[in-house]
Structure formats: structure tokens, C-alpha cells
């Protein structure tokens, strides 16, 4: 039975960064990273947008081959198609996730972690000395690995957490059902991301256009199925696309779930940490999760390495990971979740009126902060929402 120090399930941003940081923190450790798919970074289940500052904590996007497009502004579209352009400096980037995830995996590999693709964790049981026995399947057959710490970075499935007895289930109202096409030959501002709200467009979520180049974009939407009229996410997307880009050519599609909740109540147990989507670490307001996953992966890798060096991988010791995460972003997500719930009560009329008001602000002064302040003055009905923001 192969014996390792840190075993990581899932080579997305959380898993790759966890592997890299476990090796950085303790180069003598055996770190192994498993990926079920035959190539890291495929299939892409992501709109691929990421904020500039968060990304730069982990990698330099300037001129990087894993970047598809730099984003300079955000265009919000009200339900009645009224556009609001918001210019911010250094907004963010649209990644090429296939290349980006491979870049992160390569970095983990260069630091000495073993990366095994086409290899799936099939189950795990407690072994001796607080270790875990993890059954691993590949085309070559089944092997059991014994690990001191298992890091579950296995995305929305969250099987590692389930096997370890953590609560990873999510209520239906906090699950966004998403569908996305890669659309070619369409006309839009290639330096902007577009977000459209509307009950008939994406109930409980929003639709997006994230440019991958001039005339090519990820066009998708996320909705809460409990609020839908019976159509599924792909049917809503087909309707939106037919209306906005009837002449676009769809050259790919993907679907997936985005958990817009707050961090799972416990992200650790003896010998186990969960990180990224698997731990519900997505910003519940924006649905963004890439940088969060990398930040959690860094914490998980460092915590696991320090615990193994200290010879103590108990739940008590690993709880430090949970506290560090909550301090870093988890508590912010609790606030964002309250805002999300407050926004759910607002109807299309509210968003149409807000767009009209905000467009009265000159574009060069139209920052998100100003929009918010202005909206409070012009729309006193927003004040309870704002109040809930700060509670």
C-alpha cells in the first residue's frame, strides 16, 4: 500500500495550489494530487472570469499564455435591456481555464508533488494512527493509498467531505443551475463583461457575456430552479441567446452547479481538509470561486504541512484551517449571502428604475461605490437592503 503524507483529490485551482503550498511549506513531504479527468483543466465548467488583485496573489497575468482577455469595465443590463457601463481600473481577466489549471498543476509538479491524471478517488475509510485509507481507481486498476492528511478539492461533488462525515449538502434555493455556450461571430465590447438580470431571463441569478476575444465569448446564465417556470437552465439560455445573438455560432457548451451558500459549517476533521467549491467557498453574490479556491488551497496546503511536521493531524489541530479561512473570506461570505437574500426580494421594476437613476451619473464617475450611495438617495426602498448589508 503506497504511503503518502498529503493526498489531494481534484486538480482544479484549490487542489493544485494546495499541493504546491504543501511542498513549499515542507519540501520533504510526499504530496500526491489526483485528477479524475484525463487532462487537467478539462472539461471547462466555468465562465473563466477572475478579479485582478486576487489573481496576482498567485500568478502574473501580464502576457501569460493562460489569459484569454483583459477586462476593463462591467456593463450591467437591466431586465428592460437598459445598459449601465461601469468603468473601474484593473477590473480583471478572462482566463483560459484549460491552460490555467495545467499551469497550476505544472507548478505543483515542479515543486515535487506527484500529479496523477485519469485517476479517481473511489472511497476512503479511517486507517491506523489517524491516517486515511483512500481507494484510488485508474485504467491500471485499483490501489489503496494510506495518507496522513487528505485534502478534498473535488468540487461541487464534495465526495471527500461526504466520506469523512462532513455536511456538504446544500439546500435547493442556494444552488445555481448554469449553462454556457462558447459563441463565435457576435458583436459586443470585447473589453467588458456583461451581466443581465431579469426574472424571465435568469430567475434568482443572472446571464453573462464574458469575452474570450474579439467576437467570441462565454455566454451563459445561472438560475435557481425553484424560481424557474419549468424550463431548465439550457432552455433559458437558448431563449436568451436567440433574442440577443440570433446569428452567433455556438462552438461548445458546458453546464454545472454553482453553490451560492456560505462555507460548510466544518471544513475539517481528523486528517481531512476540504477546500474550494467542495467546501462551498464561492462568493454567494457573484458566484465567483477561482481566487477563493486558490486562497483556501494555500491555507489547506500550509496547514496540512505544518500539522504533519508537528506529528499532529487531529481535528483539533486542523481546526486552525477553518478559523483562518473564516477570518480571510468566510465571514465576508456570510455578509454577501445576506445581500443575496435581500436582492432576491426585488423585482424587475426595481432594477429597471435603478439602471435609469445610475445612468444619470457621468460615466467617468460611475464606480460601484457611487452607484450604491446614489441608489440609496434616489431609491429609499433600498435602505433596508443596505441596512441588511451592514448587519
Amino acid at each position, binding site marked *: 500500500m503506497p504511503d503518502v503524507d498529503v493526498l489531494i483529490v481534484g486538480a482544479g485551482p484549490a487542489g493544485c495550489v494546495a499541493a504546491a503550498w504543501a511542498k513549499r511549506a515542507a519540501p520533504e513531504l510526499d504530496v500526491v494530487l489526483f485528477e479524475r479527468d484525463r487532462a487537467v483543466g478539462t472539461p471547462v465548467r466555468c465562465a473563466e472570469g477572475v478579479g485582478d488583485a486576487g489573481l496576482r496573489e498567485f500568478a502574473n497575468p501580464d502576457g501569460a499564455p493562460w489569459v484569454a482577455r483583459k477586462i476593463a469595465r462591467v456593463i450591467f443590463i437591466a431586465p428592460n435591456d437598459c445598459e449601465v457601463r461601469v468603468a473601474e481600473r484593473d477590473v480583471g481577466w478572462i482566463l483560459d481555464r484549460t491552460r490555467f489549471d495545467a499551469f497550476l498543476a505544472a507548478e505543483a509538479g515542479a515543486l515535487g508533488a506527484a500529479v496523477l491524471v485519469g485517476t*479517481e478517488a473511489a472511497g476512503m475509510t479511517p486507517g491506523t494512527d489517524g491516517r486515511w485509507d483512500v481507494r484510488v481507481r485508474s485504467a491500471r486498476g485499483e490501489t489503496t493509498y494510506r495518507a496522513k492528511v487528505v485534502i478534498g478539492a473535488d468540487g461541487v*461533488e464534495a465526495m471527500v467531505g461526504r466520506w469523512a462525515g462532513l455536511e456538504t*449538502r446544500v439546500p435547493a434555493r442556494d*444552488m445555481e*443551475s448554469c*449553462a454556457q455556450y462558447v459563441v463565435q461571430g457576435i458583436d459586443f465590447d470585447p473589453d467588458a463583461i456583461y451581466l443581465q438580470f431579469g426574472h424571465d431571463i435568469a430567475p434568482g441569478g443572472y446571464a453573462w457575456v464574458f469575452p474570450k476575444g474579439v467576437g467570441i465569448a462565454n455566454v451563459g446564465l445561472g438560475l435557481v430552479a425553484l424560481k424557474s417556470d419549468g424550463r*431548465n437552465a439550457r432552455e433559458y439560455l437558448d431563449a436568451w441567446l436567440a433574442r440577443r445573438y440570433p446569428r452567433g455560432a455556438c462552438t461548445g457548451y458546458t*453546464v*454545472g452547479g454553482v453553490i451560492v451558500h456560505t462555507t460548510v459549517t466544518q471544513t475539517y476533521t481528523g486528517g481531512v481538509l476540504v477546500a474550494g467549491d467542495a467546501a462551498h467557498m464561492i462568493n454567494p453574490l457573484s458566484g465567483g470561486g477561482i481566487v477563493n479556491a486558490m486562497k483556501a488551497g494555500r491555507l489547506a496546503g500550509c496547514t496540512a504541512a505544518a500539522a504533519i511536521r508537528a506529528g499532529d493531524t487531529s481535528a483539533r489541530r486542523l481546526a486552525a484551517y477553518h478559523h483562518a479561512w473564516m477570518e480571510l473570506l468566510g465571514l465576508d461570505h456570510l455578509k454577501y449571502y445576506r445581500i443575496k437574500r435581500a436582492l432576491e426580494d426585488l423585482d424587475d421594476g426595481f432594477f429597471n428604475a435603478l439602471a435609469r437613476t445610475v445612468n444619470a451619473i457621468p460615466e467617468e464617475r460611475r464606480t460601484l461605490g457611487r452607484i450604491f450611495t446614489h441608489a440609496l438617495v434616489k431609491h429609499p426602498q433600498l435602505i433596508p437592503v443596505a441596512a441588511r448589508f451592514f448587519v
Partner: protein
Amino acid sequence: MRRARAAEVAVVNLAACDRCGLCLPLCPPEAIHLEFNDLVVDRGVCTGCRKCVAPCPVGALAMVDA
């Protein structure tokens, strides 16, 4: 713990399923999992609650008589 047998259970249409995993955390009794490239619904565990059906982005899950 024994429970009454469900009247209906969820089944997956693998031709439509994209293996995205969205339905797994929605399932209260944790009856769904992925095995490499197949979504598996454990008929003995499914309680017929339907929570997985509407959220599927491609409509790959449906209920059938147990």
C-alpha cells in the same frame, strides 16, 4: 434505520447527462454519486423527493415508479 419504500425513484438519462455533479449535494439521502464517467443513482437509497430533477441544467433526471 428502516424506512418505507419510495413510490418513485430518480433515474438518469446518461445520453443527456453532462456529469457536472450538480445533483450530488442536492440529494438529502446522498443517493447519487459519479463513477468515472457515469452518474449513478442508488435506487435503494433514493427517497423519491425529486429535489434533483428541476435543477439539472439539461433535464437529465426524471422520476419513475420504483
